[in-house]
């Protein structure tokens, strides 16, 4: 595509409203409506308990309280468990919670009662007056307890195993048995969470005049919420509109739906005949949304003298929390994306997905890939250490080569399709990374630092990320008679700058001015067919759909203009919204073409006067041809055969304090290949954010559950999200662009990439600095200090066997 906006750093149009305080997030809506009601939720204080009795009598006489509901008040589909969104044959014991707990609670934070009142303060007063009698049950906390299954989360899941799944290509166990060298590794990753700055929130208004429900939700899928609300409330889909306003960050957690409040709020709005709002507070976000990442892995690998992977056998245990609304997506992604840019000759992976009495697990940016990358990259480093080879050399030996694409792994990916990589150039990426971070010069630097008594280490990690999963996205492009172009696509936006990036595509494809393009996302009134914003799919899916829809609009514009200008379509070009006959003065602007496209009976302004039945058309033909439609529009859908695979490599140089074990980042380098870049500024912003989130996940953030299932750090005081003081002062980025052959723009997704290799790359660098294996992440200075003691030559066996502390 030879165009001028695609690939350039266009400033974001959405910034104007955000910078002026004019963004509209869900809690900003209906603030001037005096009839608006507010809600609050009573949540379980226990990780595992039977509910014996709920007494709401003290609530009813509280002034300002409008309604209080428990499960007993729910009927029909609302009284059934929430949907299991992504069923899978291997998920033999899938369980979901009720909108309000029925009989039993399975994590601290599970919704029990819902109060609607005149303001949030009163609603919370009311919640505090509800008395619940519980029969306390022993909770299952952590993967070891879940595997031991001495206690169970659900009575009818006796071993706490929700799913078992195995995939194999070749015969990994036989290959390992025959291999000249073998290594076994135990690798752990702890829980973390997306933690967007804006929590969940939903507002609903029932309009009795039109019998229509409007729901605004801070979600990553408007169409998904719409489908759930209609089904659960027993409404025809046509009666429900879901609008996603500005969203203050998602990172995965807002793709899960429907949350209990996403159903209770619309139900309350209908029942009470007044608009109702729910805004999650920070503690609620920690204990009643979703977490991710916790997995334990057992790796057996067999390799030859060059470090070539002859057989790789990975078993892992995935903590999915108390329920499984999002199915097996996270462990399936780990098990497939673990392979990264490598081609083990034989690969076997099996996992158990386990119940624990903790917050549910749904995808968090990276969605199982950070764990997979950690496993594979730690394995690569272990092989290099075993063979005494450079870590980049072992990786190079195992890379899929540029001439091997499309590369089939012989496995099934998270979308149910073959795991087949479309494109990439891993040797070129590695060469760029080594250059960018100064890999070959590092030993000199290490020596120089050592001479000053300073300890440094370098690490690298490579990943491949399946992006742009189906099934589809669509777009509608409408050229108005003013020449302005209104575009709708159904997926949502939570900070990615879609209004800018998509407008760049439209401006280029259609030949119109960027300023005249307006993009709407996440509004089911404008585009009822959509999937959502997750899996780094928005640019690939909606970007492609918008391009295709704009082409259709352009096709029609050229056809009408050719007729009007009495020229051949091939002789026409569109620039700045004007169609002209190449090399002549003959032209017509797109607004006029739009007028001509829509034969009118009534004239209401000068433009429409030109389009009345007496002005346009051949009197011998129908005003609108049989195979045509009125209006200058284009609509199309993009549905790819399979995912496209972006890739990248990160390297980091860290310094570890010899006394305090404090870990400092000296240099961070990223080589990133997401195919063609629509807006490099936005892509780099995504990488920056991903890297920072990765720093948090590797060095600071963890969910500190105690043995009774209480989350001890459910606040920003205690959950250590990075401030500017914790992130690298610079992130050096280099791009490689190997276009995807799977979509018309040659693009791949970029949203999640920055966070994927973090645990792996920091573990590698810290290991390199310290000289002993790092097998569990995140790692704090105190944990590193304890590891030093354990690995000190004089360490006692007891110290060496001491488990790493889990506190923050």
């Amino acid at each position, binding site marked *: 595509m030879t165009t001028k906006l695609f690939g350039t750093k266009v*400033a*974001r149009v959405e*910034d*104007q*409203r*955000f*910078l*002026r*305080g*004019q*963004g*509209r*997030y869900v*809690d*900003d809506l209906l*603030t*001037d409506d005096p009839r608006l009601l507010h809600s609050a939720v009573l949540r379980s204080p226990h990780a595992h308990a039977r509910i014996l009795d709920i007494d709401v009598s003290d609530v009813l*006489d*509280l*002034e300002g309280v409008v309604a209080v509901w428990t499960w007993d008040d729910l009927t029909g589909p609302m009284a059934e468990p929430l949907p299991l969104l992504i069923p899978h044959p291997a998920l033999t014991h899938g369980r979901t919670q009720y909108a309000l707990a029925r009989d039993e609670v399975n994590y601290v934070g599970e919704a029990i009662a819902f109060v609607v009142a005149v*303001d*949030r*303060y009163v609603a919370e007063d009311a919640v505090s007056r509800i008395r619940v009698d519980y029969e306390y049950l022993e909770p299952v906390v952590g993967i070891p307890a879940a595997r031991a299954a001495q206690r169970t989360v659900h009575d009818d899941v006796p071993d706490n195993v929700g799913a078992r799944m195995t995939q194999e290509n070749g015969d990994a166990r036989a290959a390992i048995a025959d291999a000249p060298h073998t290594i076994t590794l135990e690798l752990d990753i702890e829980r973390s969470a997306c*933690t*967007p*700055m*804006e929590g969940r929130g939903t507002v609903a208004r029932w309009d009795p005049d039109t019998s229509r429900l409007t729901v605004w939700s801070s979600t990553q899928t408007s169409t998904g919420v719409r489908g759930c609300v209609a089904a659960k409330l027993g409404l025809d889909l046509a009666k429900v509109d879901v609008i996603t306003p*500005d*969203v*203050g*960050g998602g*990172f995965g957690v807002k793709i899960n739906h429907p949350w209990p409040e996403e159903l209770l709020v619309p139900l309350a709005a209908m029942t009470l005949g007044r608009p109702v709002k729910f805004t999650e*507070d*920070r503690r609620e976000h920690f204990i009643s949304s979703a977490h991710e990442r916790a997995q334990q892995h057992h790796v057996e690998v067999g390799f030859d003298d060059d470090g070539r992977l002859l057989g790789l056998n990975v078993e892992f245990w995935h903590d999915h929390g108390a329920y499984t609304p999002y199915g097996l997506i996270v462990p399936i992604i780990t098990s497939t994306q673990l392979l990264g840019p490598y081609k083990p000759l034989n690969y076997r992976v099996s996992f158990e997905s386990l119940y624990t009495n903790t917050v549910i697990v749904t995808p968090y940016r990276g969605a199982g890939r950070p764990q997979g990358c950690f496993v594979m990259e730690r394995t690569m480093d272990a092989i290099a250490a075993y063979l005494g080879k450079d870590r980049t050399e072992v990786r190079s030996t195992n890379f899929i080569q540029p001439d091997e694409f499309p590369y089939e792994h012989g496995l099934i990916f998270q979308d149910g399709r073959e795991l087949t990589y479309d494109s990439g150039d891993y040797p070129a990426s590695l060469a760029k990374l080594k250059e960018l971070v100064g890999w070959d010069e590092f030993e000199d630097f290490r020596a120089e630092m050592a001479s000053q008594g300073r300890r440094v280490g370098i690490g690298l990690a490579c990943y491949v990320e399946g992006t742009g999963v189906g099934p589809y996205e669509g777009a509608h492009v409408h050229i108005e008679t003013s020449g302005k172009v209104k575009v709708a696509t159904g997926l949502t936006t*939570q*900070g*990615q*700058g879609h209004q800018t990036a998509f407008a760049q595509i439209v401006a280029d494809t259609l030949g119109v001015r960027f300023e005249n393009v307006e993009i709407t996302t996440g509004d089911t009134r404008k585009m009822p067919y959509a999937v959502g914003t997750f899996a780094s799919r928005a640019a690939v899916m909606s970007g492609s759909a918008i391009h295709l829809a704009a082409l259709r609009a352009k096709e029609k514009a050229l056809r009408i203009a050719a007729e009007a200008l009495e020229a051949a379509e091939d002789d026409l070009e569109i620039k700045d919204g004007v169609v002209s006959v190449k090399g002549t003065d003959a032209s017509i602007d797109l607004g006029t073409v739009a007028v001509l496209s829509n034969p009118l009976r009534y004239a209401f302004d000068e433009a429409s006067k030109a389009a009345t039945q007496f002005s346009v058309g051949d009197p011998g033909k129908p005003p609108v041809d049989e195979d045509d439609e009125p209006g200058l529009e284009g609509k199309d859908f993009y549905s790819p055969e399979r995912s496209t695979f972006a890739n990248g490599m990160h390297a980091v140089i860290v310094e570890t304090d010899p006394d305090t074990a404090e870990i400092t980042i000296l240099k961070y380098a990223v080589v990133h290949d997401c195919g063609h870049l629509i807006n490099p*500024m*936005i892509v*780099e*912003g*995504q990488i*920056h*954010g*991903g*890297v*920072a989130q990765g720093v948090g996940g590797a060095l600071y953030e963890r969910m500190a559950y105690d043995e009774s299932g209480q989350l001890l750090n459910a*606040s*920003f*005081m205690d959950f250590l*999200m990075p*401030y*500017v*003081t914790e*992130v690298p*002062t*610079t*992130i050096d980025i280099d791009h490689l662009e190997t276009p995807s052959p799977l979509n018309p723009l040659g693009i791949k997704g970029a949203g999640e990439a*920055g966070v994927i290799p973090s645990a792996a790359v920091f573990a590698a660098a810290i290991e390199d600095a310290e000289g002993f294996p790092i097998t569990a992440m995140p790692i704090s200075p105190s944990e590193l200090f304890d590891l030093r003691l354990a690995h000190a030559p004089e360490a006692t066996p007891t110290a060496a066997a001491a488990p790493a502390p889990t506190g923050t």
Partner: protein
Amino acid sequence: MTSQTEELHDVRLHVNGTVHEVRVPARRLLSDALRHDLGLTGTHVGCEHGVCGACTILVDGSPMRACLMFAVSAVDAEITTVEGLTESDGSAQGRLSPVQQGFSDCHGLQCGFCTPGFLTTITAGLRDNPDPTEEEAREMIAGNLCRCTGYQNIVKSVLRAAEIERERGESA
């Protein structure tokens, strides 16, 4: 807590140069009063325990967490929210302040939720230190959380804002 009817207080709030009269209970947070009573929803609430800084406003010129103040304790103070940062240039919208413009120039925001708190914080910071070094720019924003940008472009935005401030000063 158990009383059925809360005592209400008449409070006069001076916000962005306008005087507002509200009737609120003593426990009403200033952040809620600004957002829900005055409709100034540009001030965002990210944690309600004073850590994230999204709700930062200027109280008599100093950055304060609106979620850690009661509306009744803001009486007689001059409050500036993000809505009050733009400069009048005769247009209905007003022109972006140097800090706002710096964020626009440097892609200093993504989802925009934490942005108002950064803008107010930096506005006060640059008043105290109009020519910060990169290290000082970092220090200036070290009390605010952002989950999208990794802070890289926010630091650049601070430096760019200082530059714009100087450019505007010279051309004025």
